């Protein structure tokens, strides 16, 4: 079991096909890349070729969307096998997926669906994380998702649930700053409570992303630049957790690489201000 805490990598971007050439032809100010694992569970062609070249030059982490860790359906061992095979190729710094489920009865709804925060669900997820970690021979990193509904049967808060999973299953956490902001708005809890409610030493990655505001609720669309409120919360997260590998996630309306590198610069400047204790006058 590879069990040491993943290294601090700095500031990264999600690898998107639109940017392959620019990444390989230039030297963008990006410290590392995150891939969507399922997009590279293919046989050959340009995506895998580009992935191999990028892995030669940059640290890469793998981020999945179909593990379905909280599903009550049996594990898809073909999927886990493909994940392990891809990890052998990529040699990722860590492997993450979401604290959610994606379907039952062989169906994949291709969405990150919410879990009731019950003791039953907690025991189930902890057992499944253990099985995946044994299969992969490494610790898993799990991300909190954005959600739009809460369940009447929930017995604890989301942050209590997330914390218990991390401690009992002995896994790492990907703290999605935007998802906490979205779910806090949708369900009326305080982002600070969530921030202070998860174990500091378990968090190994931040996601920062844009969303769509629908007045009564926010949808996690990853198709906009990061908004000022999420940047403010990112500053709080950096202040609380210290240096954590940070990544901008953009999945739709994907702009030119330079635009994302600028957004990443903004994250870097916030973190630098926090780490040096110097807040730039312009940011006041």
């Amino acid at each position, binding site marked *: 079991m590879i069990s040491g805490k993943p290294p601090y990598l700095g500031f990264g971007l999600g690898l998107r096909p639109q940017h392959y050439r620019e990444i390989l032809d230039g030297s963008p100010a990006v410290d590392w890349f995150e891939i969507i694992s399922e997009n590279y569970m*293919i046989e050959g062609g340009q995506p895998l070729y580009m992935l191999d070249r990028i892995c030669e030059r940059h640290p890469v982490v793998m981020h999945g969307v179909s593990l379905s860790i909280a599903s*009550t359906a049996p594990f898809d061992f073909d999927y886990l096998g493909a994940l392990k095979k891809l990890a052998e190729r990529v040699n990722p710094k860590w492997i993450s997926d979401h604290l959610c489920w994606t379907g039952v009865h062989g*169906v994949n709804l291709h*969405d990150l*669906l919410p879990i009731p925060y019950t003791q039953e669900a907690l025991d189930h997820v902890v057992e499944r994380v253990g099985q995946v970690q044994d299969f992969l021979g490494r610790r898993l990193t799990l991300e909190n998702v954005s959600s739009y509904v809460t*369940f009447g049967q929930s017995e604890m808060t989301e942050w209590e649930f997330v914390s218990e999973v991390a401690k009992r299953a002995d896994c790492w956490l990907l703290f999605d700053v935007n998802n906490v902001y979205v779910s806090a708005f949708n369900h009326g809890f305080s982002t600070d409570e969530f921030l202070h409610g998860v174990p500091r030493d378990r968090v190994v990655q931040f996601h920062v992303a844009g969303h769509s505001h629908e007045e009564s609720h926010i949808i996690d669309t990853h198709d906009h630049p990061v908004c000022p409120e999420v940047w403010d919360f990112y500053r709080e997260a950096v202040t609380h957790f210290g240096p954590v590998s940070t990544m901008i996630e953009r999945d739709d309306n994907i702009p030119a690489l330079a635009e994302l590198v600028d957004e990443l610069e903004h994250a870097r400047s916030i973190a630098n201000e926090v780490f040096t204790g110097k807040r730039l006058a312009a940011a006041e």
Partner: protein
Amino acid sequence: MKSLRELQETFQRGILAGDDSILAEVNDSAKEQRQVLFGVYRHAYVARLAEILGDDYAQLHAYLGDQAFAKLIKDYIDANPSDQRSARWFGRHLPDFVRKSGTYAKHPELAEIADLEKALADAFDGPDAAPLTIEALAALAPEAWPQLTLKPHPTALRLTFRTNAAEIWQALKEETAPPKPIQLPEPQAIVVWRQDFMARFKPLTAEEAMMWNEAGKGVMFGVLCEMVATFAGEDEAELRAATYLKGWVDMEMLAGFLPG
């Protein structure tokens, strides 16, 4: 209280079948009713898959227009819940769905346009293989040629079209007005494969298609030449066979081989 398994089954039925039982299990928020909040999941499921199908079948979309394509993909999504770990493969049954559905089956070019788009997508990320090169063939001793066997590139797929779907697809891709759909007098052979990183297709003449099909079965080059001779005459049969072969090599339609 529902078990986790029952809750997930109810939630999934709420998304796939529009069953509202799930609403008894979820809460209103301070600002919004539960129907609207659960509706985010219902909407996202269809919207995400529709976007994937629109990307995968872009020319079919252009050919049918927004309204008819939206109807087609809604019918397809309702009939085919995804069972794939990646939405990349969600649309793989669309050509057959179109071929077998009453309304669409009356327009056979639709299924063939879909066949072509699916084949191109599959070639794009299909298996890698070093292509057979002119240099490798040039190094072959003259006496080894009759025993030479050829191997199609692993992404190569042979299609047979009964309509002018390939011509329609090409026009749409170039954003020009597509020709009227017609039944071809003779079926048209097409090979789809990947050259460099690009998925491509090439219509074959009847003779070239015959030689391609036989080559794919492992028939030796000497025998292929004899087959070409019987197909369209002995005059310059070897030259014709060699010309087809050179075309395939130039376009990287063949994978490297081991002589002998």
